[in-house]
């Protein structure tokens, strides 16, 4: 057990215990970064969030409000300064050790010397498994990189790199998928196509997913719940439930209910940004 869990045993008393079937439980998580010379920066203040197994949660919020920090906590890359985080009832880093975690980083993190194919095959190799060539080919097709299998990252556009990074995150069919603005560099059309593909994969495999995005439409097309965060220190401002039937095609995105929700969340973001500046 991590020390942070022990330290906040007190705080846990009045918080609901993790429900069985919860994939990710974040309780009272704070994150304070030390900036050196005694200066600190509080990135997160008291974040509470519970994500059920198979649920798709989108996080939106202004730049610098701590969205990536939340993902890093869930990935076990950082530990909370205060509070506790559990993933499938265990320390977050355990999931990575078991090769059950898929992450697409904000800045792709592809290996520069390896081809697209080799980058997507990397999770198999690190896990010590035989590379499933059929799976790799399927993913290449899925993210629309057919014809670029042997290209290296520097030969790809920003959006293509992001797509390769998503394919890599999906390679081992993870139990938890963390996506940090994966479609940020894509044009609107490709973005919608990738949204549809992601919705389809999620529909088939029901991978518990946390998606960080700036695009309210995207959040509403994909997520079961949308978390709106405010900045400095980061907190959760609102959690909106999204009930539109799936698959969410044009009928959904053109519906007035959809537009109302987009407007509501956008207004919330505007407010948040206003306060922030």
């Amino acid at each position, binding site marked *: 057990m991590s020390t942070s869990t022990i330290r906040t045993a007190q705080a846990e008393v009045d918080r609901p215990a993790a429900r069985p079937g919860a994939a990710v439980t974040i309780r009272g998580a704070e994150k304070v970064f030390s900036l050196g010379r005694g200066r600190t920066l509080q990135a997160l203040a008291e974040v509470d969030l519970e994500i059920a197994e198979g649920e798709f949660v989108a996080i939106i919020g202004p730049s610098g409000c701590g969205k990536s920090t939340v993902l890093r906590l869930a990935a076990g890359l950082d530990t909370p300064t205060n509070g506790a985080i559990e993933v499938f009832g265990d320390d977050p*880093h355990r999931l990575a050790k078991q*090769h059950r975690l898929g992450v697409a980083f904000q*800045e792709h*993190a592809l*290996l*520069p*010397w390896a081809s697209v194919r080799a980058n997507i095959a990397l999770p198999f190799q690190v896990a010590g498994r035989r590379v499933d060539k059929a799976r790799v080919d399927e993913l290449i097709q899925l993210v629309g990189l057919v014809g670029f299998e042997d290209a290296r990252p*520097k030969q790809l556009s920003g959006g293509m790199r992001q797509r390769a990074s998503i394919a890599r995150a999906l390679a081992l069919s993870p139990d938890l998928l963390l996506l940090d603005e994966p479609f940020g560099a894509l044009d609107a059309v490709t973005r919608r196509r990738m949204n549809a593909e992601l919705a389809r994969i999620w529909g088939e495999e029901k991978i518990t997913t946390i998606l960080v995005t700036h695009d309210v439409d995207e959040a509403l097309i994909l997520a079961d719940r949308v978390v709106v965060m405010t900045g400095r220190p980061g907190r959760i401002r609102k959690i909106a439930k999204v009930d539109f039937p799936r698959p969410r095609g044009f009928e959904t995105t053109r519906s007035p209910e959809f537009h109302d929700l987009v407007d509501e969340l956008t207004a919330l973001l505007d407010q948040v940004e206003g306060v922030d500046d």
Partner: protein
Amino acid sequence: MTRALSFLRGLVHLWPVVLVFVAWDAWVVLNGYTSTVAPRPFPVVTDVVIGFGEYLPYISYTLGVALVGLLGGTLVGFAAAVVVWSSAALAGVVTPAALIIRSVPITALIPIIARIVGYGDPAVLTSTVLICFFPAFVFTLSGLAAIPASGHDLFRVLGGNKLQVLARLGVLYAVPNLMVSVRITAPTAVLAAMLAEFLMGAHGLGALFSESRSYMDMERAWGVALVATTVSVFVFLGARALENRVVARVT
């Protein structure tokens, strides 16, 4: 036609070489040196061209020692850097040793090396290895330190261990740095080999130089210097070409 033209244009780039020869000749003539003090370029070049067959075994020996020493020193430096990177305890042992090797001038080290590994060929090779060791060590270490945080993060979320980080990430991030080290040490390797040969070797350009000097064959002695310079330049150019290719492959 255009081929010939670009060839001529290439020749124009050789003006510093021409300048060296002109300055050399002027220096000898203006000072009125006799050929036992300093020979003029023409007889030296003639000696190299006509006697090239006699130079050849010496060239190949020195070149061989320099290349093997370069390879060996680079590998040892690389290995030492990997050890230092992976273990703080070992870093405390290896780093001071590396620094000591670095701080003692090679000319002072050669007699000691000869005492330890044996006079002649083994000492020549060991000196060359030592000269190439330190840059490879330092450059590899800085390459390993430059693994981006995102790379470490990636291997953590993939559940990789430290060995995998090293093999799949560290080695490849260190390679461009290692190639810089090869490029800058390659001419030094030739120099170190020659110096060791000069001091105690029976083979190689260094030995040929000391031999011809003791026979007062100044054309040959200067010819050795000329040939050694040329060999150094080619080794450097070769290392640079290799560096360009390798770096293009891994970045």
